[in-house]
Structure formats: C-alpha cells, structure tokens
C-alpha cells in the first residue's frame, strides 16, 4: 500500500510499504477513506520530536472502514463498519482509561521506558507519532492497524460525510478539551493564542460552554478572518498590536478569565530579538520548546483565572513566569486530549447541527500529494488551514 513516511527533518515522502496485519486479538485493520495533517505533525516534520526513524508512517487523524477484525474485539464492531479513530491508543482497562484519562493509558506504549526517561512517566501510545509514543504506524496511508479497536474506533452510523466527522479523531475534541480545562463559564472572556484548527475549535467550544467574548490571537490575516467569520471571535494580530495592552483594554484592565495556549512548542514572537533568543537556545538544545504563547497567556490572564495549555510541548521550556503565575493565584491545566471521552458527545453535537467542523478544511488532496500538503501547511501558503488527504 501507499503511505506517507518520515524521511528526515523537513522531508516526508509517499512510499510503498507492506499492508498492515492483525497482530493482536483486539486489533482492527481500517481502510482509510480520509486522513488529515495535524499541526503537531509539523513538529515531527521540523525534527523537534525525538525518536523518529526513517520510514515511520505518519498520521494520527484518520477514519475509514473496518476491513479486518481480530477475534477478541469486544464492542460489537463488525467488518464493514465505518469508523473514526481517536489518536491516543488506549486499552480501556487500566486505571487511567477507566478514569477517562485515555491519553495517559498505562498499557499502550510498548516503549514506556524511553518515554519515562524523558518524561518521568509514560503517556499513551499515539499513531504515527515517534517511537517515544510507541512506534505505531500512522493513518496517512491506505490502511492502518488499530490496536484496542473496541476502545479507539467510534462507529459512524448515519450518512454524515467524512468532512464532518473526521476531526473527531483529534482536533475537535482537542479544542473542546482546551475550553473545558479552562473551566469556561457562562459570561467568561476567553483569549486563545493560535488560530490553527485547534484554536478555531477551542473558540467554537468556548461559545458552546457559554463564553460571552472570545478573542483569538495569531499573525496570519486569513486565519484570523476564519476565526471571525466562522467561529464568531474577535481577533488580534500580534504582529500589528501589542497583545497584553489590547487584552487589558478589551477587558477594562481585568484580563481574560480563561487563556488558552493553542500554539505550543514552536511559537513565534513579534520581537525578532526575543524570538531569536529562544530559537538560538533551541538550536543548541538549551531548551527544546519555545513557549512564547504560554508566557504571554500567563501574563494576560486575570487574577485567579485559568490558563489551559493545549498546544503540544515536547520537552523543556525556559523563562516560565512563575512569579506572575504564583502571586496571582492562577491555575494551569494541560494534557493531550482524552479523545475517547469526547467522541460520542461531540458526534451528538455534530448530528444536532451545533457544530459543523468542516469549516476548517481549506485543501483536499490525494495521498500522493501529501508532501506538498505538509509544505503549504507548514509555510502557510495558499491560505492553508487544514489539509484532508484522500487515498
């Protein structure tokens, strides 16, 4: 089959690889009908996630049809079922899964010891997301093996098009969880750094949870326009305006109740000098992540407010404003999305028409063109916000 593979930093290629097989009783093999490139795939492309190997199949946002099922699948899944698969691989049986913390499943990372060396404890395995996260082949391919399919695969029974349900695999639950972790309450003002797909869905979700005002911060006018037109947010272009001043002005000095970092480890800063500072430290491995958005989110947040960090971080950051955070009684929450917890309720909202996640799609292309998709997505060309791939 064809699959999009990691070759080297800044290089992916569509290669011919063997078809996946059932390895375990609870496995399924899914014939992919749609997959997508995630913003976090760009961290892999850029070489910021360790433990990648040449030939790793990428992709953790995908859906399709079950074509093969192991003998031990528990949940009434059948060959022929149309399913969306959540990106964290979760067993459903360990204490973490049973508490609903699927992205920290205790059993799904066979390389737990590598992750423990870097992180203390291991998170769950993730499709196509480095050997640190298990060494699983991903879904930017024609077929993909899905372990614990009875936990990870959600059956889609009505005729909703792929474009409406595909993002249940990652970015929609991720954006929703960002708002939920921020403890958004009716009447809140919510500021969101990053107008990528996760930031867009965080904005939509904040309104669903009752936010009165949502402000999205980015530097690409086309992304800010989508946040205004489709998510109903106000926007700040940080290259044109001072973010802290503007937020203070908008809230008459209080600051937003909830601040969401939907940027993560490869943030940018309007000050070339400050950006260069972190970029240089990153280059010599004195810090691994550039936390511009997180720092600003903490400084902006109102006293006693909540900062929700949903953008992906991989290692260590520098100049964390602990003094501001501590003295002003802030709360910081974070986590990879526990996708399996949100898939059903969010599918219900899609069915009822409360959300139409397809608004983020700007490009649809053939699997063969995936490297081009990575290129325009990374370099923000052609107003690219989300690339959907069709095998």
């Amino acid at each position, binding site marked *: 089959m064809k699959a999009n593979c990691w070759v080297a930093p800044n290089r992916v290629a569509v290669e011919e690889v063997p078809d996946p097989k059932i390895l375990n009783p609870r496995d399924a093999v899914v014939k992919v009908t749609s997959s997508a490139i995630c913003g976090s795939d760009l961290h892999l492309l850029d070489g910021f996630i360790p433990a990648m190997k040449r030939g790793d199949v990428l992709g953790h946002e995908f859906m399709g049809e079950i074509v093969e099922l192991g003998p031990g699948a528990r949940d009434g899944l059948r060959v022929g079922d149309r399913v969306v698969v959540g990106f964290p691989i979760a067993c459903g049986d360990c204490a973490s899964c049973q508490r609903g913390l699927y992205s920290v499943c205790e059993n799904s990372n*066979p*390389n737990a010891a590598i992750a*423990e060396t870097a992180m203390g404890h291991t998170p769950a395995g993730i499709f196509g997301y480095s050997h640190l996260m298990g060494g699983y082949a991903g879904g930017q391919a024609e077929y993909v093996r899905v372990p614990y399919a009875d936990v990870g695969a959600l059956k889609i029974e009505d005729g909703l098009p792929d474009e409406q349900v595909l993002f249940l695999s990652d970015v929609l639950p991720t954006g929703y969880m960002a708002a939920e972790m921020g403890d958004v309450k009716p009447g809140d003002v919510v500021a969101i750094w990053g107008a990528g797909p996760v930031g867009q869905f965080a904005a939509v979700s904040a309104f669903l949870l009752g936010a009165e005002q949502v402000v999205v911060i980015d530097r690409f006018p086309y992304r800010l326009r989508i946040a205004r037109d489709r998510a109903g947010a106000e926007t700040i272009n940080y290259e044109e305006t001072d973010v802290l001043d503007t937020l203070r002005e908008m809230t008459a000095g209080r600051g937003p109740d909830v601040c969401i970092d939907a940027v993560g480890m490869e943030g940018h800063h309007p000050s070339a000098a400050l950006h260069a500072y972190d970029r240089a430290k990153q280059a010599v491995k004195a810090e691994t992540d550039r936390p511009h958005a997180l720092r600003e989110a903490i400084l902006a947040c109102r006293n006693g407010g909540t900062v929700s960090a949903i953008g992906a971080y991989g290692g260590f950051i520098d100049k964390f404003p602990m003094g501001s955070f501590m003295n002003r009684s802030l709360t910081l929450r974070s986590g990879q999305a526990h996708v399996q917890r949100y898939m059903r309720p969010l599918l219900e909202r899609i069915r009822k028409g409360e959300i139409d996640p397809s608004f983020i799609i700007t490009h649809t292309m053939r699997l063969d063109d995936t490297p081009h998709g990575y290129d325009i997505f990374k370099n923000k060309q052609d107003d690219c916000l989300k690339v959907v791939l069709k095998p």
Partner: protein
Amino acid sequence: MTRETTMGVRSVTDNLGIQRATRDQGPEGLARFLGWFSLGLGVTALAAGSRVARAAGVDDSRTARTVLRAAGIREIGHAAVLLVPRRAGLGPWTRVAGDVLDLVATGRAYRNRSGERRRRAGLTLAALGGITAVDLYASVRATRNRRGSPEGFAHGSVTVNRTREEVYRFWHDLENLPRFMYHLQSVITTGPRRSRWSAKAPAGRTVEWEAEIVDERPNELIRWRSVDGSRVPNSGTVRFAPAAGGNGTEVRVELEYAVPGRRVGSLVAKAFGENPQQQICDDLRRFKQVIETGELTRSDGTPDGTSIQTQAKQRPARPLATYRIA
C-alpha cells in the same frame, strides 16, 4: 526484607511504580574514603616532606626522606586505584601491601633510633598498625561483596487494575507465567505443588528445573523454590496487597538465586537472562498488559512487545512484510 541490606541492595522505585534494586554504597563508601585519605597522605608527604619526617622521627636520615617521597608517590597511586569505581574492589588490597612496606621501614627506623626520635617512630608505628587494620577490614569486605554478586537478587513491583483475588488466581496458575515472562518456554504443573520449568538458553538450548510451591496464602502470597539437586537453584516470592484507596492491587516480586560457583552461576544467568533486574521490570509491565487488557502491547516498531533490550534497535513504525508472533 533484611536480606536486601546484607546483600548491599537497596530499592529505587521507577516510574511505573516498578522497583529496581541498586547496590548499596556501603563498601564503596569506605573504599572512597580510603582513596581520599591516600591522596591526602601522598600530597602531604610530597609537599611537606621534612615536617612529616620530623613527626615520624626520621628527620636525621637522607635515605628516610627518599623512602618518604616514594611512599608519597605510592599513596597517590592507591588513591588513583581506589577512586576509579571499576577498580575500587581491588584498591584496598593495594593499600594493605603498601602498609606492610611502611611497617617494615618504620620498624627498622624504630630499632635504629633512641630518645625522642624513637618515641615518635613508635607512635608512627602504632598509627600505621591502626591504618593497616582498617585497610584489611575494607579489603575483606570488598572481596566478600564481590563474591556475593548482586545478580543473586532481583525484585520489582507494579500496580494493576484488578482485584487481589483475580491477580492471585492468575499467578497461582504457574502455567500462565510464560505468557509474560519471555525467558520461560513453559511451566508445566506436575503435581499439586510441583511444576517443571523450562527456560531459553543461548544457541537454541533449554535449561530445565523442578520447582515446588513452599508457601501459599490465598490472595496474599505465593513462595516457590527449585527442588534440591536442581541445576538452577532459585526461589521466588510474589506478594499481593490492595493499593491505597482500593484502587487495584500492588504486586511485588522477589527472585533469589544462589550463585555458589561459576559454572552453575552461568547456567542461572542463561535461565534468567543477562540482567535479571531489567528482565523482572519488563516481565511486570507485560504482566500488567496481559492481566488488564488480555494481550501484549505490540506496535510496528516493537512487534515483539515491551523489552528494554530491544527498545534501542527499533524497526521503523511501518507494517512488517512478514511477521510471525513469537
């Protein structure tokens, strides 16, 4: 377990709650102290030779100064041996040899002198005697520790999301063990308490032994050991305890295998893998996977499942052309 301290093993809990044993610093600590002590003596003898000579009562002899300088250089040599961790086991013996030389030289000085110098040489002799006693103690201790190799003991623990009853039942059926203990080929129950164990050894060979359950307390503990005359003497205990707040069961395993001689020792090594401590950690991770999910976790990069040894040489995360589950 008291055995832990006598064998110089202490436990460190790793991230999955799995305990690893590491060597106690005890004997190495004394050797390190002696190393620094040697360095101090050596430097003093070289830098302040005349004062040392006066204190020892030998400031009247040119030869004695040369001997002192040589002893200073030798002390620095002891320090080098003692402070390099891998050689520290031998180090104290080099000091004992040096002590003998010093005692002979000082003894001769004592015999040839009188008055105040003789008194000082006598005091030096007494001090040297004390140091020799400490060095001998350290040497014997280091050697004994080397013989009682830490490979004789391994332990680990893990928390599983199952009741004590389930976990006990699973473990009590010893035939389940090869499902998660990769070095075992099979365990066959041959009687109510007896079983026949077979383990993989290099070059396609197998090592076999008979074991018997010597103690069992339902939902609490199982203790087993190889029967007398076994080629691979070993014993083990697994304990089950409720985790705090009733959240699952804590499982603690201890393995001991006597290492009386080299030949049998190597058989044990073959039966338990090259690093039993690492193996037991892997075994417990896989045990958790099997009892919680019903299967071993496999990815394309790690198709054979969790193993620290194979983790370094991962396949790429892409489907395998031909793969048979081991």
